[in-house]
């Protein structure tokens, strides 16, 4: 009996160990570091309580970056999830050759975010990019994309969604295929039209999957970093300065680990709050 109780933990141990080493320990280290200030002159770490937090809360650049992150999140998450849901419904159709389409739509997932970002960066280039080549062929003016205050954040949303939409649609597709066709058939016999069966049956039954997708997508986008580092470095004029990049800049370019850790801790709290709220809103009547 005892051995049987131990066995699951034994199997979980390697994963737990990695989680502790790569997630829990750095998190605690960040919390601790956020209460220290490195004396610039002596190089000694001095306990500073909440001084780093005070510093970042009084820092307009932190708030600007916070604002960009909120705007980005409010745009990118609904866009990605709506498109992912639409794509999942589309490739859930039982048509001849649908497997080929599914594979094509899922291809972007097979390429890493870094490579995707760099390739999109080349394609969106103002002077020699493919996208501008097509635009000028069609008689439109060249667009600055990543170099424009108004277009850069949208360009990042596009790049993030290029991978995000197919990735999340894969999860939703799995959820769709879990819905028993008999339920939908019954609704059809009862006279429900397509919209009614989607909104009253499919969507409620997808609740759990959507809850997961919403939480995971929100966190992934909140922590968006690589495309910013590779393409815009937060610019132009801080218009893509997502908070994760600002954190990196403070810690690793300016060497201000205290402020960087304080920002990370604030982000962690916000992520927890968002997840809690989303799970609360999507809780099923079970």
């Amino acid at each position: 009996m005892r051995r049987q109780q131990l066995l699951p933990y034994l199997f979980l141990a390697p994963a737990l160990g990695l989680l502790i080493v790569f997630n829990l320990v750095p998190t605690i280290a960040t919390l601790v570091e956020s209460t220290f200030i490195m004396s610039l002159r002596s190089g000694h770490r001095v306990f500073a309580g909440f001084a780093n937090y005070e510093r970042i809360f009084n820092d307009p650049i932190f708030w600007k970056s916070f604002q960009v992150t909120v705007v980005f999140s409010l745009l990118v998450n609904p866009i990605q999830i709506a498109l992912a849901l639409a794509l999942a419904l589309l490739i859930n159709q039982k048509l001849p050759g649908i497997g080929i389409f599914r594979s094509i739509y899922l291809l972007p997932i097979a390429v890493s975010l870094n490579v995707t970002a760099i390739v999109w960066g080349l394609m969106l280039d103002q002077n020699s990019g493919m996208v501008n080549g097509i635009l000028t062929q069609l008689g439109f003016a060249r667009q600055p994309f990543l170099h424009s205050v108004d277009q850069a954040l949208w360009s990042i949303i596009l790049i993030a969604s290029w991978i995000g939409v197919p990735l999340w649609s894969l999860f939703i597709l799995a959820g769709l295929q879990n819905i028993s066709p008999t339920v939908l058939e019954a609704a059809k016999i009862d006279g429900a039209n397509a919209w009614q069966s989607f909104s009253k049956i499919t969507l409620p039954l997808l609740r759990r999957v959507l809850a997961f997708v919403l939480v995971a997508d929100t966190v992934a986008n909140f922590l968006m970093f690589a495309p910013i580092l590779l393409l815009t470095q937060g610019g132009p004029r801080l218009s893509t300065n997502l908070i994760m990049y600002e954190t990196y800049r403070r810690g690793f370019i300016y060497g201000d680990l205290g402020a960087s850790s304080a920002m990370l801790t604030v982000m962690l709290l916000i992520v927890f709050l968002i997840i809690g709220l989303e799970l609360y809103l999507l809780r099923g009547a079970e």
Partner: protein
Amino acid sequence: MQKKAALLLVLLLLLAAAPGLAQDVTTLTWLTLDWPVDAIIEEFEARNPDIKIEAEQIGFNDLFAQIQVRLGAGSAVPDVIAVDVPLVSGYAFRNWLLPLDPVFTGDEVEDWLPAAVNAGSYEGTLYAAPISTSTQLLFYNKACFDRAGLMPPGADDRLTWEEIAEIAQAMTFDDDGDGTPDVWGFIWEQMVRIYQLQALPESLGGAAIGDDGLEVDGVINSEEWIEAYTYYYNMFNVWNAAPQGEEFWPADIFETGNICMFVGGPWNIPRFANNADLQIEWGVSRHPYFADGEPATPTGSWHIGVNANTENVEAATRFVHFISTGEGAELWWRKGSGDFPAQQSVLALFATEQEFDELPMSYMRTAADEATVNPRPRAVTVGFLEYEQILQNTFQDIRNGADVEESLNLAVQRISSEMAKYR
């Protein structure tokens, strides 16, 4: 007794062998730019068989972050680092560099250009020894002038920025008619770096930073700065005489004939002179200035410093001494970075060496003289890294069409945020 004698003999033998055994080879790590380092390392190792140098070479863009992360963490490696001069005070302020005063004799210090010694010192102590210095010239492609029906300037002429604007527009050509020029009139070699761009407001009488070395409000958003960077903005956005987009290295494109003029360092002279495949005919003239201002030419030196936490102080200082003085310095100039030497004894070689008697290498003499005309070093501030990085973002934004005044005001806000921690 015999036993004792045998033991003694063994001991003596061991002692005799000891220097050989004890003379472990010390390996130094030298974090440096992607300069040609083989010749200097080879010569140093030949003279110092007990030391081996491993050069860790990285690009200009990554060097500063690398130093920041590694020295900031208190690492003992790298032992020796290349130091861009405006960062000396920041590194010294943080106690990252070993004071070098005991390493050099008075004569050796006197041989360095006084500006370079000052720049390598912080609060009166030398922290980084100068290994090179720099100046800027205008490089141009003669064919562009012919095509535009203009006369190229002579090596000792100094064009105004206003003239540059006119000429650059006349020499921008869209040959295939796709709306994007194929031959551009002008570019700055370091198109978004304060090193080169600071000369613009300075020619108009602007300053680089406040007197306390921290204040930027009223300085980098002053009238002079706004006027200077409106000129810069116009070059890219209004006159369309210079290419926008990502940063690139103009010399590559100058060699293919797609850039007609650029302001750049004398390191381009040997590069173009030694390029046997180069098709274009080129020339240089003095660094431009604003008509109602005064000439101001960028300068900055490269230095070499010792990590304060190194475990190999003696070996590291020996290498630093070698490369920054005497024969080592001359070798570094001849076969190393190719930059301007910071030692007056080596600088004097420009006047006497036959190599510089004829064109185009004689342009080096033009450069040597230009280095003495109102040279303007970068701001001295402990927060130079933040200052540099934020202004780089700002220039990149302006270059790609952002409003000049708004961008400079945002830079004030950002730099002030970062400087707060040094107050």
